[in-house]
């Protein structure tokens, strides 16, 4: 066990993957010599060489498009998109090519490409550096979309993502990069929780609070803050597509109330899918509608307004309270 930041845990996970399989590669803007703007790939080029850790030209479609070609050749590229807001030039390669290739080829082609995306706000950044674009990808069948929330999970999730034969969009909560946690780097990977399973972070009985990525910690803090009045079960979804409905449904059927929190705009966000699905699966158990706490139907605001835009402990608790007002 060692105490690592989330960033370092990812770094260690990537290192493990590079060591374990010579076909694993890392590619992206500034991932090599600089080690990435968040240092997630720090030192990897030095140790594994320029052929395996590739500083690419500045072109996101190029990164994903060539990664697809490398995967066709048997490689397992792990691509970094420098910030959430810069994934969009790669949308076509991701949605029309990466997601569909297995289906198109009737299973003859696997594209084990991982796309790492630092995501979310709360760091006082300029435009396009604080977005939460997960819902754009959860709608695309063929992609796995996952989000890590803490160091220990990040360490194993990144390795599981790389080991997966499916393309994986891997969201990293950038404002949690420097949060520390105990990471067992000696545990075998197959003891880790599978990539497509949600995780009950805090058991509870009165209401189910669902989240992922940066807000998991906020949700736990919120739950603790009201622990004396209410027993809040906090679930870290981990897998955003496909959703682990078994875990979610079991919880909501028990608690009868459900709140989903994410940073992305509520409108047409992932919370919508969760709410719709949970309602269908747990209709007779629900005491209140599934409520959503999230970003507003506006573009991400200038950073001096982000504290208002982002769900914080109070807004999450407000959502929980509303769930009890029915």
């Amino acid at each position: 066990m060692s105490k690592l930041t989330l960033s370092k845990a990812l770094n260690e996970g990537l290192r493990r993957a590079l060591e374990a399989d010579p076909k694993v590669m890392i590619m992206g803007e500034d991932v090599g010599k600089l080690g990435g703007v968040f240092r997630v790939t720090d030192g990897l080029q030095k140790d594994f060489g320029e052929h395996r850790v590739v500083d690419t030209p500045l072109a996101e479609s190029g990164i994903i498009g060539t990664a697809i070609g490398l995967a066709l050749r048997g490689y397992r590229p792990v691509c970094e998109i420098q910030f959430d807001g810069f994934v969009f030039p790669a949308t076509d390669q991701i949605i029309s090519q990466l997601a569909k290739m297995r289906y198109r080829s009737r299973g003859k082609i696997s594209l084990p490409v991982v796309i790492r995306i630092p995501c979310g706000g709360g760091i006082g950044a300029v435009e396009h550096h604080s977005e939460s674009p997960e819902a754009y990808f959860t709608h695309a069948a063929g992609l796995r979309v996952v989000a890590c929330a803490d160091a220990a999970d990040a360490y194993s999730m990144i390795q599981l993502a790389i080991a997966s034969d499916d393309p994986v969009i891997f969201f990293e909560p950038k404002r949690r990069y420097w949060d520390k946690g105990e990471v067992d780097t000696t545990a075998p990977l197959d003891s880790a929780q599978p990539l497509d399973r949600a995780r009950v972070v805090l058991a509870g009985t009165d209401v189910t609070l669902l989240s992922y990525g940066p807000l998991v910690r906020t949700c736990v803090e919120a739950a603790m803050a009201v622990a004396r009045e209410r027993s809040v079960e906090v679930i870290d979804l981990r897998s955003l597509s496909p959703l682990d409905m078994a875990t979610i449904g079991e919880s909501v059927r028990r608690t009868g109330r459900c709140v989903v929190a994410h940073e992305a705009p509520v409108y047409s966000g992932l919370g919508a899918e969760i709410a719709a699905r949970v309602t269908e699966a747990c209709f007779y158990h629900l005491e209140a509608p599934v409520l959503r706490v999230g970003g507003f139907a506006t573009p991400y605001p200038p950073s001096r307004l982000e504290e208002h835009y982002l769900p914080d402990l109070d807004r999450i608790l407000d959502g929980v309270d509303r769930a009890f007002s029915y």
Partner: protein
Amino acid sequence: MTETGLIQLLTPEGERVDNPAYPLDEAADIKGMYRDMVLVRRIDTEAIALQRHGELGLWASLLGQEAAQIGSGRALTPKDMAFPSYREHGVAWCRGLDPLRLLELFRGVSNGSWDPEEHKFHLYTIVIGDQTLHATGYAMGIQRDAAEDEAVIVYFGDGATSQGDVSEAFAWASVFNAPVVFFCQNNQWAISAPQDRQSRVPLYQRASGFGFPGVRVDGNDVLACHAVTRRALQAAREGQGPTLIEAYTYRMGAHTTTDDPTRYRLASDVEVWRLRDPIERVRSYLARSGQADSTFFAAIDAEANELGERIREGCRTLPDPAPLELFDHVYAGGSAILDDERERYAAYLESFEQTDTALEEAGL
């Protein structure tokens, strides 16, 4: 746009001309290329007819582009990898793909059911330009494998050159010196857009701005296409990086079977190009130079007839996929969400069968 600088080894009249930079490969099997061109043209003709008869949803004709495709396709070694667009039926032929695999796609039975690695021929790519990056990435893989006897070729059209992805592929291939040949069939049309809607200078020049050589070849001259491609592939294998080949040709048919080219181009323009037919010139050359006689030509026509019949028959009997195949091959690792959908849909389908059986049993 001028046609100067066009590399040619065989004139439209079928006369051999020499080009010191591109000596004819002694081993080049000209008769074989002739045969290939005749056969793929037959595939094309049959497919168009099948579409007319409702057996295919669509067909993209290669008419007029046989030399570009057979010349370049024949320049590939078995180890080279090819990335097609959606019109490369001639290249598919050279890669040993059964034409029925292509018909499946245009019939709507599959989206490409061949094994790309087995044939060293990737799936057709319909989104314009996307495959140029895949090819470049594949070539970067070859570099990492230090596989010095392999190269990649990627096919795309004149229209595709405007897509950002194609320029990105040029930039990457150049920066990484990747062993990839960019083979642009400039058939002068992107549906209704003439070539000057994509560039005001000849397309092969695009490469120089990215730092690698571009060459323009007579795309209706199978020998020239073969020689130019062979050389570019060899350069790629030898570590000299990418080349852009612009095969200057003409789309003789409609864009696809749903297109009506009379809306945007003159029949007389098409006529000019009919005189440059890629098959006719080889035929004259072979005949005039005494390399082939009427027996040879007749044998190939007979072979084409057989092939045509096989395609007609084969196409009509291509089986439709079973409904539940809809749910296969989305994820390698499976998905509980999808399993649930499959199960529900299976039950739904079964409910009809049950109704049908019940009705039947009730004698209705």
